[in-house]
C-alpha cells in the first residue's frame, strides 16, 4: 500500500523511485544477496589483481628513481612499457619464439589430433579402447612430464648433461638443436596438448547426424567426396576452435619451455615473465604478463566471436542411426597395429624410461647392474645429490605431498561451494546485467596464463591488504591462487548444476517459510551435489599437477610436489626429480580414475 500512495502523490519522480525501490527489493532478495557476495569475491580475487598489475606496470618504483630522477615513487609513468615493448631481446624475441612454438605445436596438434579422432570415431579400427585411452592419457599428467622424458632419452655430455638412453645404447649423439630449443618444445607440447583437440573433434565427428552423409550417398557422392564435402566442413568449426584454444594453451605454458628452452637460451614470453620476476623486475614482468594476457584474450575472443557460435552446426536431433564406419578391409589389422605401436612408442615408452631412470643409482648409467631403489627408499648418501634420501622416506617430500593434497583439497572445496553460489546467481538472475557480469568475470582467469597469475598474486599479497594479512610464504596464498585460477571450471559446473533445479522447488520451500540458509542446505545443495562434487574433483585433479601457478609463490616452507620435482632437477638430482615426477603421474592417474568411476556411478544413479 505504501508504494502505491507514494507513486500517486509524487508525480514525475514516481517512476524513478519505483525503479529504485524495485532494485532495492531485488537486492534484498535471496538472489540479490548471493549475487552481491559472489561479485565481492570475484572483484577481490580477479578484478583487483588485474587492475593491480596494470597499475604496477604503470607506476614508478624505488628502483626506477635512478633513471627517472624527477619522479617520485608511485607516480604514473610509461617508462616500463616503453622499456619493455621497444626491446628486441626483452619482448619481441620471446614474442616471436612464443609464436614459433605456438604455431608449430598447433599445426602438429591439429594433424595428430585430427587423424587420431578420425580413425577412432569413424573407422573400424581395432584396439579402439586402448588407442582411445592413450589419446587422453597425456592430458591427465603434468604438462612437462614428456619434457623430462625427452631429456632422459636424448641428453648427452655434448649438451652438458649426463648420458641419455639413446646415447648409452647406440652411441649416437642427437644434435644440440634436437635436444634443446624450439623443436623439442613443439614436439613435447604436441604430445601433451593433442588430446585436447582429439577429444573435441572426436565428439563432433561422433555427433554428426549420419543422415547428412546418407543424403549425399543417395545423391551419388563417393565416400571420399562425402568426407571432403560434407563431414569435414561440418566439423571444421570444431577443429578450428580446438586448434585456436590449443594455441592459447601452448602460448601460456611455462614448464616445458623452461626445461627444454633455457639450456639453449631459447626464451618465450612465459619463461621471460619468470626470469624477470626472479630478478625482482616486477614492473617489466607485469608488462609482459599484460601482453600475454592480451594475446590470449584476443585468441579466445576470436574463437567465441567468429568460430564458436556463428558457424557451429548444431545437429538436429534426428534418429540416432549408427554411423557407417569406414572399413579398412584387409588392411584393418596391420593399420591398427601400426597405430597402436606408434602410440605406445610416443606415449608409454617415454614415461617408462622416465620411471626407469629414477631407479638408476648413478646418473647416466643405463645398465641394469646400476638398478637401485636408492632414490625411492634409500637413506641419504652424501656422495649423491647432496645427501637427499629417497622420496618415500624423505620427510621433506612427505611435507610436500601433504601440502599438495591440502592445497588441492581446500581450493577444491572453496571452488565447489563458490561455484554453487555463482551458478545460483547466474541461473536465478538469468537475462539480467548482474548475471552477465558474474558470468563474464568468472571467465577471465581462463585468459590469464598461470605464470602471470602467479606473478600477480606474488606481488599483490607480498604486503598486507585490506581484510587480509601479508600472505607471502603462507599456505593460504597458494590456496587463494589455485581457487581464483580455477573459478571458470566451477562456474561451468555450478551453472549447469543449477540449470537442472527448477525455481519452483525453491519457491515451494520459501512459501513454507524456509530461510536462505535452510534452502541452500536442504533443497539446493542436495540436488546440485553431483555437479558440485564434479567441480571439486576437477579442481583437485588439476591442482595436484599444477606447477606454473605455484612456482613463483614458493618459499622453502610451503613447497608442493611439482615444484619440488623441478627444484631437484635444478640442483642436478635428476633421478630424484624423475622419481617424484613418476609419483605425481601415478597420483594424477589415480585421481583421474577415481573421478571417472564416481562420474559413471552418479550417471547410473541419475
Amino acid at each position, binding site marked *: 500500500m505504501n508504494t502505491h500512495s507514494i507513486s500517486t502523490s509524487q508525480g514525475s519522480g514516481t517512476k524513478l523511485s519505483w525503479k529504485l525501490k524495485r532494485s532495492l527489493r531485488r537486492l534484498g532478495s535471496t538472489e540479490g544477496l548471493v549475487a552481491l557476495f559472489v561479485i565481492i569475491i570475484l572483484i577481490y580475487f580477479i578484478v583487483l589483481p588485474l587492475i593491480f598489475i596494470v597499475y604496477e606496470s604503470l607506476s614508478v618504483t624505488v628502483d626506477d628513481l635512478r633513471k627517472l630522477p624527477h619522479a617520485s615513487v608511485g607516480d604514473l609513468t610509461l617508462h616500463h612499457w616503453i622499456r619493455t615493448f621497444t626491446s628486441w631481446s626483452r619482448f619481441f624475441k620471446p614474442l616471436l619464439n612464443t609464436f614459433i612454438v605456438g604455431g608449430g605445436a598447433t599445426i602438429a596438434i591439429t594433424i595428430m589430433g585430427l587423424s587420431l579422432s578420425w580413425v577412432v570415431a569413424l573407422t573400424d579400427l581395432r584396439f579402439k579402447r586402448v588407442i582411445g585411452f592413450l589419446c587422453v592419457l597425456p592430458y591427465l599428467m603434468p604438462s612437462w612430464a614428456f619434457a623430462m622424458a625427452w631429456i632422459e632419452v636424448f641428453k648427452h655430455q655434448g649438451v652438458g648433461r649426463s648420458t641419455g638412453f639413446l646415447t648409452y645404447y647406440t652411441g649416437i649423439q642427437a644434435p644440440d638443436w634436437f635436444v634443446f630449443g624450439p623443436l623439442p618444445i613443439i614436439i613435447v607440447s604436441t604430445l601433451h596438448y593433442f588430446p585436447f583437440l582429439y577429444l573435441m573433434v572426436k565428439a563432433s565427428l561422433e555427433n554428426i547426424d549420419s543422415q547428412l552423409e*546418407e*543424403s549425399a550417398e543417395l545423391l551419388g*557422392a563417393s565416400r571420399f567426396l562425402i568426407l571432403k564435402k560434407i563431414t569435414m*566442413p561440418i566439423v571444421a568449426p570444431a577443429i578450428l576452435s580446438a586448434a585456436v584454444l590449443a594455441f592459447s594453451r601452448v602460448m601460456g605454458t611455462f614448464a616445458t619451455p623452461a626445461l627444454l628452452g633455457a639450456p639453449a637460451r631459447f626464451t618465450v614470453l612465459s619463461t621471460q615473465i619468470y626470469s624477470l620476476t626472479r630478478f625482482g623486475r616486477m614492473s617489466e614482468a607485469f608488462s609482459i604478463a599484460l601482453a600475454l594476457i592480451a594475446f590470449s584474450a584476443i585468441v579466445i575472443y576470436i574463437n567465441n566471436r567468429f568460430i564458436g557460435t556463428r*558457424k557451429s552446426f548444431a545437429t*538436429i536431433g*534426428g534418429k540416432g542411426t549408427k554411423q557407417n564406419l569406414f572399413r579398412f578391409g584387409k588392411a584393418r589389422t596391420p593399420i591398427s597395429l601400426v597405430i597402436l605401436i606408434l602410440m605406445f612408442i610416443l606415449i608409454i615408452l617415454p614415461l617408462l624410461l622416465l620411471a626407469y631412470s629414477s631407479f638408476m643409482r648413478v646418473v647416466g648409467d643405463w645398465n641394469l647392474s646400476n638398478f637401485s631403489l636408492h632414490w625411492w627408499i634409500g637413506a641419504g648418501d652424501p656422495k649423491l645429490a647432496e645427501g637427499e634420501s629417497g622420496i618415500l622416506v624423505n620427510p621433506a617430500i612427505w611435507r610436500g605431498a601433504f601440502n599438495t593434497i591440502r592445497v588441492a583439497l581446500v581450493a577444491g572445496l572453496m571452488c565447489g561451494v563458490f561455484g554453487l553460489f555463482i551458478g545460483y546467481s547466474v541461473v536465478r538472475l538469468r537475462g539480467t546485467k548482474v548475471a552477465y557480469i558474474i558470468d563474464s568475470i568468472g571467465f577471465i582467469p581462463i585468459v590469464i596464463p598461470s605464470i602471470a597469475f602467479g606473478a600477480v598474486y606474488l606481488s599483490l599479497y607480498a604486503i598486507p591488504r585490506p581484510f587480509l594479512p601479508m600472505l607471502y610464504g603462507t599456505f593460504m596464498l597458494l590456496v587463494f591462487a589455485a581457487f581464483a585460477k580455477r573459478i571458470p571450471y566451477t562456474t561451468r559446473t555450478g551453472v549447469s548444476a543449477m540449470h537442472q533445479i527448477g525455481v519452483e522447488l525453491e519457491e515451494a520451500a520459501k512459501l513454507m517459510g524456509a530461510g536462505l540458509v535452510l534452502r541452500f542446505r536442504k533443497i539446493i545443495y542436495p540436488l546440485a551435489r553431483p555437479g558440485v562434487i564434479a567441480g571439486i574433483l576437477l579442481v583437485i585433479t588439476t591442482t595436484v599437477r599444477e606447477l606454473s601457478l605455484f612456482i613463483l609463490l614458493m618459499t622453502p616452507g610451503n613447497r608442493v610436489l611439482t615444484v619440488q620435482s623441478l627444484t631437484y632437477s635444478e640442483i642436478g638430482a635428476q633421478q630424484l626429480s624423475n622419481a617424484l615426477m613418476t609419483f605425481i603421474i601415478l597420483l594424477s592417474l589415480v585421481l583421474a580414475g577415481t573421478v571417472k568411476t564416481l562420474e559413471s556411478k552418479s550417471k547410473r544413479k541419475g
Partner: protein
Amino acid sequence: MNTKGISIKHISKNWGDVQALDNVSLEIEPGSFTTLLGPSGCGKTTLLRSLAGLEEPNAGELWIGDKMVFGNEGAVFVPPKKRNLGLVFQSYALWPHMTVWENIAFGLKLKEYNAQEVKELVEEHLNIVGLSGYGYRYPSELSGGQQQRVSLARMLSVSPEVLLMDEPLSNLDAKLRVSLRAELKRIHKTTGLTVVYVTHDQIEAMSLSTHIAVMQNGRILDYGEPDRVYQNPSTVFVADFMGNPQINLVSSTIVEKNGKNLAQSQDGTWEVEVEAFDVAPGDSVIVGFRPEDTILELSDDSPLKVDTVQKTGPDLLLTLLVDGNEIIARTDKHSGFAMDQCVTVSIPPELINLFNPESKKSIERNGSSGNNF
C-alpha cells in the same frame, strides 16, 4: 513419367535377436503413394532404409522396376547411389554449411549437369516447393517447414524414379503439417512419382496415400486402399491402430432371436444384428464399429445410459458403459444428447466388423471374398 514400381519379396532383417523385418512381401504399383504405417519399432523405417540401400536385409529380394537391387542371397546389392531414388528424412538432413542453393545443386553437379542446367533445375525445384528467392539462405535461417521443403526439392531435383520419405512431417507443428500434407499431395499429383512414405500418424497415412501397409513386429498386417483398411481392417490391431477416437470393440456372443443372428454383449445390455456374417449361435466374437458410425436414439427402456458428454467443436463425443467397458459414440453437435439420458445404439449392418477373439482376425461376410490379402 519415368517412375517405377517396387517389389518386396520375402525380406527379413534382424539385428542379433531382434527381428526387425520378418518375411515381408509387398507389391507397390508405379505412381502410387504407399504408406508404411505402424507404431515405433514395427520395422517400417528399416524396410524403407533397406529399399534405399542404407541397410542390407538378411534374406529376400528387392526389385525397383525390373531391376533387382537386392537378392540372390545377398550376392546382388546395388549401392544407394545407383538405385536412383530420393529419400527425405525426418530431420531434413540439410547440410548446415551449404546454402539452400548449394544443397540442391550438390546432387545435380554429381549428375554432371552443366552450370546452366544446374541453375535452371535448382530454380525450377525451388519454385515447385514455393521457396523461390531463398537460395542464398543457410538452413539454420529457415523454419522447420521450409527446411523440409528444401530437403524435398533436393531429392526431387535429381529426378529419381522413386521417392522415399521417412516421417518427413513429424518434426513440424500441427498446423504446418496440414499445409505440407496438401503440398505433398500436389507434388505427387504433378510428378506422378512412386512414393513410399513412412509414418506412425494414421491421419497422415489416410489423407496422403493411395495404399496403406499397416505394420507390426516386422510384419505387414494389412495392405490396401485407405478407405478399405479403415473401414474393414483385417485384424483387431489394425482396427485399433487406425482412427481417433479409437474403434469400439465389444466382446460378444452370437445368440439367435426371431430367426436372426445377433451379437450380444456379455452383460446382455447391448446387441446388434450380424446376419451378413458367417457365424453360428454360441460363437464368441469381437464386434468392432467406429464411433462415427453409431446411430443413437433416446429410449427410456434402454439399459444403456450416456455416461459423459465431451464437446469437441464440430461433434459430441458420448461415452456409454457396456459390460463395464466404455464405448464411444460420435454425434453431431446439434444432436443435443446429455448425461444420464437412456439411449439405444445401433450400427448400419455394412459398417459392422466382426473379429475372431482368438486369432484376432476379421470374420468374413457371407458371399464376399474377404479382404485377406
